[in-house]
């Protein structure tokens, strides 16, 4: 299969990745090759095979509903690009 530049732009949009127009043909080529490669899976007969989500077939372990963590907001916000009064700042969302 061969992805069109528009298809690549649409995937990039879904993935929230800015890709420059200059790079689109290269991604179209690479992604097409990867999808061609994984298309080999079509040749495998998987009738009545159960899908596997986890190697050990474990069920999700649940913990007690108890407070275990202390508030470390200041420490965590040291890594934030922009904070004010303990809040994370982003461009205006609602006009």
């Amino acid at each position, binding site marked *: 299969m061969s992805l069109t530049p528009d298809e*690549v732009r649409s*995937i*990039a*949009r*879904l*993935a*929230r*990745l*800015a*890709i420059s127009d200059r*790079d689109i043909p290269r*991604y179209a080529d*690479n*992604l097409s*090759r*990867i*999808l061609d*490669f*994984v*298309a*080999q*899976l*079509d040749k*495998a007969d*998987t009738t009545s*095979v*159960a*899908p*596997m*989500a*986890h*190697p*050990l077939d*474990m069920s*999700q*372990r649940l*913990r007690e509903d108890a407070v275990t963590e202390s508030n*470390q907001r200041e*420490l*965590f916000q*040291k*890594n*934030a*690009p*922009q904070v004010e009064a303990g809040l*994370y700042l*982003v*461009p*205006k*969302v609602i006009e």
Partner: protein
Amino acid sequence: MHTKTLTELARDLKARKLSSEELTRSYLTRIERFNPQLNAFITVLQEEALAAARAADARIKCADANALTGLPLAHKDIFCTAGVKTSCGSKMLDNFVSPYDATVVERFRQAGMVLLGKTNMDEFAMGSSNETSFYGPVKNPWDPTRVPGGSSGGSAAAVAARLAPAATGTDTGGSIRQPAALTGLTGIKPTYGRVSRYGMIAFASSLDQAGVITYTAEDAALLLGAMAGFDPRDSTSVDRPVPDYTAELERPLKGLRIGLPKEFFDPGLDGRVGAAVHAALTIYKKLGAEVRDISLPNFWLSVPTYYVVAPAECSSNLSRFDGVRFGHRCESPVDLLDLYTRSRGEGFGAEVKRRIMTGTYVLSAGYYDAYYLKAQKTRTLIRQDFITAFENVDVIMGPSTPTPAFGLGEKTGDPITMYLNDIYANGVNLAGLPGISIPMGFVDKLPVGLQIIGNYFDETRLLSAAHQYQRETDWHRQIPRGFE
């Protein structure tokens, strides 16, 4: 002292022939001297390491030490280290100082091990050559024009060049075993769930597992014993006792049933690597093992299955990097969407973007069944092959990689060529089994590795089989020229 194994250094520390400070200084000096040519470290912790070494010496003096106290090591830069930059090889996290320790880091710290620094790696562990790192490629100490493998390439190069006596790594599709093989080292990927993933930056959560890169299986046993075990902070950590790996190393191999999958010996395998596997099997037979021909009929599905499952999980895991709470943020975003897309577009390199987009595509409406659901079913087939094989054999052996280390830049043009380097590794992660790579000889003066795959939680048998081979051979004792 840098030519000694971790186990030998542990003995010297215990016998007080050597202090941790002397040992640490010696490695820091070697890092200063050799790292510029190898690029194995992203961060070197000179001051912190010496302080930790002095604290370890104090513990040894008042008999408050264990087998690991005072031994230096390096962590792959995927493990969160409190107060220390944790980049994951990415521009996205170039400014990230972790507020906490990964469980693996915490356990080694509590044991009194000395952290020398954080090692270079493929960006977000996505790569097989260490060429996708934001910090530049790592050189293979055996030949600086070649790659050390990846994604734990910095850890492998550091240990091979004797800049650290051991290092941690992570293995999602071969990222410990492949670099260990290409640099002449021992690398173990434990069973999925054996070692905590807490604080280990996630790539593909159903495949990721932490392990170590060392000189010998004996060294790996020593470290794995301290790093394995239940952790309530990792929801897939398995609550199961950790065996005494060191105590079991000498368990006789007589009667060990080794499975040799015919599918591993395909045309993609360098014949000289195949010959080295057969030479290793001769030694195992001498030790009393028996070799049985087996088949893994769905082996050919492992790389294509991996390249649906791993990108799908990565596209989901890496959505947390949004330029809001931590990590790279673009300059003057006009709106929230612009903030997300440009921060991610600038922060991630080409391979990471490729994988996120592959994952986004295979999970998107209309394609989910054809790709993702299909791959989960072929994953079942791959695991079933191994389960069937282990009904008749104790371990499976084969090559770790199809060829010795390839040249820098040789495989960067085509992602598929690069992906096929992990053809023998991917299936083990998909099935969640443990695997180890050990040095088994040289091809073109470059090391090649023997892969031993074990049944679930049978690390004990992998380590004892590796250890007894290493008693009969000295491949693991070879040091690259210029680093003696």
